[in-house]
């Protein structure tokens, strides 16, 4: 399997076998992407990573499939897109499912490193181990579904594309990379980076076989693990209802982000049974055993819980059909639903408080005004009027009065990804504060913290003493660090978190299961401890990248509201994050990771990462 370096400025392509040494150190997917991201950010620009313009040609854009992606391993569909983020101005990394990554590997590549900028709109075709660059003038201006349809018409029904929509073309800082109707590499504005390179799409024709070390063994492991997974209550519920059922849980608890987290519960109109009225089928990604994605009857796929919360409750919008229509619209335009919902809600609160007015917004901006939001979403994607301001995502704070930043629900300038208000469950709060790409639950969310598992079960899983009380601060750092590591491994293998041990379930696939899959698929041998060490290495590498961006301990923090404003209602009423106790959690977390009080890596780890970089 190969790694390709494509210079869009010169049109030159270099193809080399993916390094075995680096595979052993980082597996693939997110881990190996991070290695190359650091490598390319550290060279060629005076001032290093911090000086790299995320929308300039010097920013590398890396598509990396997981080590197991495209094989028959359960839920092995995923890839990561990585670059310096134009949204956060820090580490950018987005994970995505669907069918593209399997096709990319079947076309002969597990990683594409895209450098420079094309003179004119273009797209890449990867096919049979070769890469060609094609002009895309006729594709520029199309939505994500239109672009994919035209590329299928041009290159055959068996091809799969990853594309940008109008938002990426206009370098909207929260633009996503799309494949299929809804599969989204959404976080951090990777679509804007792609647009800045004049790259509309990557088309993969996956005709080849992915090399597998022991096909019979992999088939047997797949069969056994599928049976195990299908016995899980969590997997069964996700397969029947998808993620929308999570809305009701968060809403009942009083933890659904509502009206920019001024409130913490909303209408019952957005529960799963209401969403289900607009669903006609459940869909799946490559090799999936869960089938969690709705196909909706309004012309798209989804919505997920995140979109229901952030383009529903968070902007005060209750009708399910309207939320689903917005879901389809952001996907067609190539916008990250999480950032879009968070940024619009932020603007609505600023308008409510009189911090911005009609002169800037071009008209009223009221909670739940569907027509206005629909128009605004399009204006963001095409950078029109007030939409051009919001297209800057968190960076729009520089165009607002200084106190506007107090109402932005973001960490490290990345808007919070999921609609769960973290003031109640302290481990969730620590998780989004330290997540390497900013406020994001998919880096380390300790979802087990609300299951109130018995002491012995928690000790067996986490290996450290933890509290079963989600409102307790002490002892949560080890839990977050444990999730950091296993999610980093999952992302590096290309697996889905819905089958990962610790994500909502004390069961599912852990390091031992991963090793069975790795051995059968690649012939590589890891012990469970060695595999967790890969996760630690990836987390340390991401920390180092953030340090090289100039991030410090002060950036591992939370939105001001989460510290200062108690939650207003329901079971979470009165809860907020106490600043001193938060700093104590941070101390514990750094200690659990082996970092010093400022969050710096131990010298031996830094030396190891540097040595790998030189290699």
């Amino acid at each position, binding site marked *: 399997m190969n790694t390709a370096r494509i210079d869009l400025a010169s049109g030159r392509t270099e193809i080399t076998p993916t390094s075995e040494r680096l595979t052993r150190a980082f597996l693939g997917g997110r881990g190996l992407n991070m290695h190359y991201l650091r490598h390319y950010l550290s060279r060629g620009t005076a001032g290093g990573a911090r000086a790299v313009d995320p929308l300039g040609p010097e920013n590398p854009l890396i598509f990396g499939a997981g080590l197991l992606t495209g094989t028959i391993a359960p839920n092995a569909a995923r890839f990561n897109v990585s670059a310096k983020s134009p949204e956060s101005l820090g580490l950018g990394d987005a994970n995505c499912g669907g069918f593209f990554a399997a096709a990319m590997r079947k076309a002969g590549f597990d990683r594409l490193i895209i450098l420079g900028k094309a003179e004119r709109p273009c797209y890449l075709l990867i096919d049979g181990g070769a890469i060609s660059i094609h002009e895309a003038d006729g594709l520029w201006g199309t939505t994500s579904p239109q672009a994919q349809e035209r590329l299928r018409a041009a290159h055959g029904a068996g091809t799969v594309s990853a594309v940008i929509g109008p938002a990426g073309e206009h370098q909207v800082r929260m633009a996503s990379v799309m494949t299929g109707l809804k599969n989204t590499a959404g976080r951090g504005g990777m679509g804007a980076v792609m647009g800045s390179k004049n790259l509309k799409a990557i088309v993969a024709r996956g005709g080849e076989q992915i090399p597998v070390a022991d096909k019979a063994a992999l088939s047997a492991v797949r069969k056994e693990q599928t049976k195990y997974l299908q016995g899980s209550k*969590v997997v069964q519920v996700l397969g029947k209802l998808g993620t929308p059922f999570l809305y*009701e849980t968060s809403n*009942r608890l009083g933890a659904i982000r509502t009206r920019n987290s001024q409130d913490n519960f909303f209408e019952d109109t957005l529960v799963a*049974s209401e969403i289900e009225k607009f669903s006609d089928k459940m869909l799946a990604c490559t090799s999936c055993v869960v089938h969690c994605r709705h196909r909706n009857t309004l012309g798209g796929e989804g919505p997920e819980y995140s979109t229901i919360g952030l383009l529903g409750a968070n902007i005060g919008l209750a009708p399910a059909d309207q939320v689903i229509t917005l879901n389809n619209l952001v996907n067609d335009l190539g916008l990250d639903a999480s950032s879009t919902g968070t940024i619009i809600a932020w603007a609505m609160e600023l308008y409510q408080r009189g911090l911005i007015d009609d002169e800037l917004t071009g008209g009223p901006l009221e909670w739940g005004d569907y027509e206005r939001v629909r128009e605004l979403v399009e204006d963001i994607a095409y950078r029109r009027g007030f939409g051009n301001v919001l297209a800057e995502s968190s960076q729009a704070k520089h165009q607002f009065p200084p106190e506007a930043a107090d109402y932005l629900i973001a960490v490290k300038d990345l808007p919070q990804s999921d609609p769960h208000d973290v003031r109640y469950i302290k481990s969730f709060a620590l998780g989004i504060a330290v997540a390497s790409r900013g406020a994001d639950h998919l880096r380390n969310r300790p*979802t087990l913290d*609300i*299951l109130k598992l018995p002491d012995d079960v928690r000790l067996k899983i986490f290996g450290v003493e933890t509290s079963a009380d989600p409102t307790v601060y002490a002892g949560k750092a080890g839990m977050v660090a444990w999730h950091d590591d296993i999610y980093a491994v999952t992302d590096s293998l290309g697996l889905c978190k819905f089958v990962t041990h610790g*994500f909502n*379930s004390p069961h599912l696939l852990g390091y031992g299961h991963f090793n069975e899959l790795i051995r059968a698929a690649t012939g590589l041998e890891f012990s469970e401890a060695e595999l967790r060490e890969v996760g630690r290495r990836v987390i340390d590498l991401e920390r180092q990248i953030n340090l090289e961006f100039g991030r410090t301990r002060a950036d591992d923090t939370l939105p001001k509201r989460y510290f200062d404003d108690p939650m207003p209602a329901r079971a979470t009423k009165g809860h907020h994050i106490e600043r001193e106790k938060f700093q104590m959690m941070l101390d514990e977390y750094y200690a659990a990771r082996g970092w010093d009080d400022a969050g710096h890596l131990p010298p031996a780890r830094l030396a190891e990462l540097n040595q790998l970089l030189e290699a």
Partner: protein
Amino acid sequence: MKISVRLSEPFWRVAGQRETTVGVAPGQTVADAVEALLKRYPALTPEFHNDEVKPMLFVNNDEACPETPLAAGATLHIVLPLSGG
């Protein structure tokens, strides 16, 4: 006395309805209400004995446990405590 019970996803699908009422004696607890509920809807019983994920309980707007006492007119919410994206 009558207690309202509201079943969230996926439990209401097992019971066939979102809301019901159960009778408990004064001084009885959430555990007694759940017992009454399971007598009426035996198909719900495995949901309460699943070692992977057990229901989360609320009485009115407060998180509850089996020992939580009940008052007339209370609403018991039964929720699946999962989270994520």
